[in-house]
């Protein structure tokens, strides 16, 4: 902690009363005006975020905001561009062997870490091998990015060879998330049989000693629940950022965050909720940007086959009828204030080519829904509620609390429509943690749930959540289909993009037919910034994202 701040605290209490009494005048103002760092031409950009940066140690942090900081401060082999195509980062080119078992990367020559020491392919090889060595211990956090990887080697300073145990079609997308760490700094913590000390290293900066990194910025100041400062890395191998310093301020109140933007206390906000976007749009000094995002909302059926009650809900015909009864246009218009797209597949249109264009959003058709339920033999009861297997079709829908807000309005729209097909729904909110406990498969704790995903652009993650092997893991639907699992393995092992794309489409078709969960809305990603700034690189996860460094490197004052 800054010693000046510690010393100052002793005076605060006594002086505070005086300050309140005198009503000390403002010496704040806009974030840019407050800047003291850098020369006259330097610009400091201050972002507001609503997720804390939980740690600067990549073996510890799980928040996406922390991963975004790593994206800007540590190099990775590749990254996405704003159109979500994989492009060079530390690696300038790469090649996969014909059997898919070896990847050879050519890395940047004469690159340096922020402290001036050489950044070479050996650092990348060391990082990969260390994570593999401690995959079940201290490095478990990063081990997920190395699916199928056996080892890595660096035959020379500019060449990295990654050896695979089996081909992995998502390898580039996965390895993209792996920050390359400076061996010189981290090797002393990679000790013992479990590598536990990898997690105990705080990796905090101190005055005059920024965190050693190799991305466009380096962390010079860190405050988990305050402001974290990133300074332009003078040794960065790529094109330097336009801003000299990037401040990232945590806001625990989204309302206060938006007010701070309006008042000019911050320059930009990463992630705005739809209702907030409307309030910002009236302000001519702000830009509100929205685009289809990687943010899908779903209506989950528990398909676990050994449930004791309400087995009707596991029938594909019921899933289909419910799908017809969901009025996606109304949901988009009223619950999301227009900041969403009707969804049809877990592989969202924002992923580009991975979304099968042949899959169409089901029409809103209550007559068809009624027809399907009639054909299934679920007769309408006297009170307007159908009877299935001797039980009224009256169900509790659980909702994870991060869905509340738009989700509550979505439920009200669904409830009204479902009444018209003889199905009664009741809402019960759960904390995310409780919802997660309910959905661990095999589960008999719920029948219907509303939740959502913020999936990565590569389809492997979302497709994997429907495999039988993910019981106890990512599966929340209990869906289990041997044909689907076989296709998943085939797409994982595919060594050509065309072949893989074809299989991915087949899998999407299976999901569209069996409907293990109904995807009803793909929420837009909304960011906002002051008109004083321009050059934000927007992606389907906004401008501050672990997907790319292109979101902020070209931001500058207008």
């Amino acid at each position, binding site marked *: 902690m800054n010693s000046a701040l510690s010393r100052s605290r002793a005076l*605060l209490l006594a002086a*505070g009363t005086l300050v309140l009494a005198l009503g000390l005048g403002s010496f704040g103002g806009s974030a840019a005006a407050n800047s003291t760092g850098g020369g006259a031409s330097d610009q400091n950009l201050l972002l507001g975020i609503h997720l804390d940066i939980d740690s600067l140690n990549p073996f*510890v942090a799980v928040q996406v905001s922390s991963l975004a900081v790593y994206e800007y401060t540590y190099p990775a082999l590749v990254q996405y561009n704003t159109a979500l195509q994989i492009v060079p980062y530390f690696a300038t080119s790469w090649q996969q062997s014909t059997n898919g078992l070896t990847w050879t990367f050519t890395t940047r020559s004469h690159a340096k870490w922020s402290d001036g020491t050489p950044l070479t392919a050996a650092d990348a090889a060391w990082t990969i091998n260390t994570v593999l060595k401690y995959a079940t211990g201290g490095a478990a956090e990063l081990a997920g990015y190395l699916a199928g990887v056996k080892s890595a080697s660096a035959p020379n300073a500019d060449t990295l060879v990654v050896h695979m145990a089996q081909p992995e079609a998502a390898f580039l997308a996965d390895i993209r998330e792996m920050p390359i760490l400076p061996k010189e700094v981290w090797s002393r913590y990679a000790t013992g049989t479990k590598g536990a000390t990898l997690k105990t290293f705080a990796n905090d900066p101190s005055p005059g000693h920024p965190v050693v990194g190799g991305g466009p910025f380096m962390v010079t100041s860190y405050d988990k629940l305050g402001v974290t400062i990133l300074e332009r890395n003078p040794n960065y191998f790529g094109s330097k950022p336009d801003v000299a310093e990037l401040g990232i301020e*945590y806001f625990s109140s989204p309302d206060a965050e938006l007010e701070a933007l309006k008042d000019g206390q911050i320059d930009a906000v990463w992630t705005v909720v739809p209702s907030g976007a409307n309030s910002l749009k009236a302000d001519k000094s702000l830009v509100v940007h929205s685009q289809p995002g990687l943010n899908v909302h779903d209506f989950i059926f528990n398909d676990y086959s050994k449930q004791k009650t309400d087995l009707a809900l596991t029938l594909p015909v019921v899933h289909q009828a419910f799908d017809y009864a969901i009025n996606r246009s109304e949901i988009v218009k009223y619950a999301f204030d227009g900041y969403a797209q009707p969804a049809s597949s877990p592989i969202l249109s924002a992923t580009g080519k991975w979304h099968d264009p042949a899959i169409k959003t089901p029409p809103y058709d209550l007559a068809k829904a009624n027809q399907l339920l009639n054909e299934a033999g679920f007769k309408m009861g006297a009170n307007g509620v159908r009877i299935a297997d001797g039980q009224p079709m009256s169900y509790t829908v659980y909702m994870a609390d991060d869905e509340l807000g738009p989700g509550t309005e979505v439920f009200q729209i669904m409830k009204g429509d479902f009444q018209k097909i003889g199905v009664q729904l009741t809402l019960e909110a759960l904390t995310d943690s409780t919802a997660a406990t309910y959905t661990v498969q095999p589960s008999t704790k719920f029948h219907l749930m509303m939740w959502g995903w913020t999936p990565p652009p590569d389809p492997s993650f979302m497709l994997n959540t429907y495999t039988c092997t993910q019981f106890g893991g990512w599966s929340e639907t209990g869906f289990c289909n041997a044909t689907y699992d076989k296709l998943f393995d085939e797409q994982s092992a595919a060594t050509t993009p065309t072949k893989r794309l074809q299989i991915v489409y087949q899998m999407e078709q299976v999901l569209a037919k069996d409907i293990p969960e109904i995807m009803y809305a793909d929420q837009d990603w909304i960011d906002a910034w002051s008109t004083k700034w321009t050059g934000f690189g927007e992606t389907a996860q906004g401008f501050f994202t672990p997907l790319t460094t292109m979101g902020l490197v070209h931001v500058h004052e207008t």
Partner: protein
Amino acid sequence: MNRSAADYALRRGALALVTIFLVVSFNFVLFRLLPGSFVTNLSHIPNATPAFRRAIAAEFGLERSKWEQYIIYLQQLLHGNLGVSYANDRPVLSNLTTDIANTVPMVSLGTLAAIVLGTLTGVASAWRRRTVVDHGLTGTALAFYSFPTQWLGLMLILLLGSVLPTSGMHTPFLIGAPWWKSALDELHHMILPSLTVMLTLLGQYTLVVRSATLEAMSEDYVLTARAKGLRGSRVLWRHVVRNALLPVTTLVALSIGFIVGGAILVETVFSWPGIGLAVYQAVSERDYPMLQGAFLLLTISVVVCNYLADLLYFRLDPRVAR
């Protein structure tokens, strides 16, 4: 200290220790009553793979039985170890020390201002009872007392956000500034959250002091003082207020005890990185060690302050020992 005073102090001290032990156990159970844990909280984060979640559960002993976890917790506590935060892998004590250091100046400032202002308004409204002054002061106090804290904070942000900082403790990019500039900057950031703390506490001080003052004003010795022809202000400050402040002692002690606990809602609205915000985060993340540590410190703080208030009460009015 005479024997009855020593007995009183010992009895109260023993009660305080029992209270702390019970709260330690209660805290352990309380946070584990809800389904789920820190690990299940990660289930919708794509980079937190199932293998990672298993490793985390093993690292923090979450796969052990609750009894085992409780015994380990007590053993560690006896060694002065509050454990390691699940969220950032750092010692809880180190996290809490930083948080408390951030909280205490801001909440103290608001509390102190509330005590001073509340005492003045309480005395004034009692002295001018059933007048416009009385109705105005008690009405205002009641209004602030009844406003939800987060709403009041947001209203202050809306009203004063263009002239005062509304978030955090420091102006970003002000690193390496002279200490006096940092201190002034921190004070500047403290104004709105401290003002919110003050306004939320003001009502109870006004009402308690008013009530105690009115009670004291009806005492015979006040009548005697008036009959002796003493000036009104002398009667008020020498004979009424001094006696009326006795019940306020408890309220002040309680307020001081709660300073360490921070002000969760205020710190959340103003993103003030203190213990209140840390508790809010820890609840969201199911970070049991942080919650246990924070509540333990809060408990100790409240119990100790109450204990001191009891002793002070005994000093001010020895009849309470009977």
